[in-house]
């Protein structure tokens, strides 16, 4: 409209850039801090411009770790986070898509009961049943294991509902055509339904990967060994209560490294990310 011309347009641009600056500032500070000398920071003398210690700080962070609190290289923590995030994303998609397939395309005893059993899990995040879950995982000897990290977080219905929703929109005639073409249930699933679900799976994968990578409370509880720590848990252990001992450049480098994979996924796969986010929340 006409009003969107002229001065209003500049106001809009200005407000958006202010918003971007506010959103980006803490991260900018983290990047700057991760290239500076710890002594300088500890004195409250940190510069707002990047320093010259980039390679040395990141080398120590990834391959060595802090010298004080935990001695775990952050590279290893990232590997743990990666394994956990992938296990959650892939595991959840795999078990959800087959159960959604069963619920939508078959009639079997207790079908609706099973649907509701799965549906209800939607309501309660792991945080509210944290200690009993911890106990189960401990009883199953899964503390300090990838299975223990991932399995309890797979137990939720979002993906099942999403796939169910999608399957309901697939025209019935496609299944009928497949039947006439001689395809049985498994073949229809593999040849037709799975390829059609590709975009949905990808969008879901993006969201689940980010959520998995960012898990905190659960890994904090069930990992006791330093070499099983995820990066989110590791970063907290680096901040010691006695301020003087905190190695801030390494903490900030770890923060940057912790942000890198999920932020990259959001920016690089923006379309899938937006789609996944909107669909999982519906």
């Amino acid at each position, binding site marked *: *409209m006409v*009003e*969107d011309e002229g001065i*209003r*347009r500049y106001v809009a*641009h200005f*407000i958006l850039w202010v*918003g*971007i600056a506010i*959103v980006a500032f803490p*991260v900018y500070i*983290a990047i700057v801090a991760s290239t500076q000398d710890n002594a300088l920071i*500890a004195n409250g003398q*940190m510069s707002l411009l990047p320093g010259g210690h980039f390679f040395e700080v990141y080398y120590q962070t990834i391959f060595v770790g802090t010298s004080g609190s935990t001695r775990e290289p952050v590279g290893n923590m990232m590997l743990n986070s990666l394994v956990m995030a992938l296990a959650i994303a892939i595991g959840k998609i795999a078990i*959800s898509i*087959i*159960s959604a397939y*069963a619920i939508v*395309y*078959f009639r*079997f005893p207790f079908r609706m009961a*099973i649907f509701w*059993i799965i549906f209800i899990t939607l*309501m*309660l*995040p792991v945080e*509210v*049943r*944290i*200690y*009993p*879950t911890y106990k189960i*995982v401990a009883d199953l000897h899964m503390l300090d294991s990838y299975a223990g990290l991932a*399995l309890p977080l*797979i*137990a939720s219905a979002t993906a099942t509902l999403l796939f169910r929703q999608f399957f309901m929109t697939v025209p*019935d005639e496609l*299944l*009928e055509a497949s039947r006439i073409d001689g395809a049985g*249930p*498994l073949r229809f699933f593999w040849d037709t339904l799975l390829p059609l679900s590709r975009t949905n799976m990808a969008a879901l994968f993006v969201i689940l990967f*980010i959520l998995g990578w*960012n898990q*905190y409370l659960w890994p*904090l509880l069930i990992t006791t060994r330093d070499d099983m720590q995820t990066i989110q848990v590791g*970063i*907290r252990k680096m*901040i010691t209560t006695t*301020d003087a001992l905190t190695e801030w450049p390494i*903490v*900030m480098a770890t923060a940057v490294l*912790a*942000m890198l994979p*999920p932020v990259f*996924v*959001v*920016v690089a796969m923006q379309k899938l*990310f937006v789609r996944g986010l*909107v669909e999982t*929340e519906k």
Partner: protein
Amino acid sequence: MQKQAIFQSKLLPCALVAPQLAIVLIFFYWPALQAVIQSFLLQDAFGLSSTFVWLDNYIELFKDPAYFEAIVRTFFFSFAIAVSSLSFALLLAVMADKPLRGSMLYRTLLIWPYAVAPPVVGVLWIFMLHPSLGVLSRYLRGLGVDWNPLLDGNQAAALIILAAAWKQISYNFLFFLAGLQAIPKSVFEAAAIDGARPMRRFWTVTFPLLSPTIFFLLVVNIVYAFFDTFGIIDTMTRGGPGTSTVTLVYKVYSDGLLGGNLGSSAAQSVILMVMVIVLTGIQFRFVERKVTY
């Protein structure tokens, strides 16, 4: 809603739902049930035996002023985070919804903080506003503020609200933008022809039409503030100073971990479950009906 075209097998679908059913039963229902049972039990000091104590754990909780404070604090945090984050995100979304050059770039630059994990958010903000070495603390002190969130409970609470709201901006922005884009442009044009100036148009057309989105986001933000702030609190203040930033989830965690009072922790879990179910219920009920046009 049911499909008409289906396959006949009975065995195959059972095999297909089995993995999810097993995981859900073992890692969801069993622990949830345990939490409920445990909330009625009192364990002795050594954890060797437990007695059934009816609602004692709950009664203890509600008699405990610290718990009551945590409830009030949690709701206060939730509303403060939701309102501040929602209003800022709405402002940005309304701006980004205009036909501006580079609007895709703006979107990209505003949505990425969604991907930053809560503990990292905590680390970023405590570093900036750390009493002795934070880069922003210098300016605050320059302004004459006696800034020390590690000692001052109110300042600590403000810091947590700020950090949590910051993280939530991108999420809210994205949904507001989608909501705005779903409103047909002709409605704005009609309002403009009807003589409504931009500000008036926002309050009389945009805002009401956006109310389903606003309500939805309000609920999501409150649930977020309930649970996802844990990581922020744990890295920034660990509930302190004193108990001035202890929320309900943080209390479940710390009571169970430090105090080893599993009965009380379980009772708290059950109360949280009920709260979340109520919130989700509200969301389903109202988002579906009242606020849709």
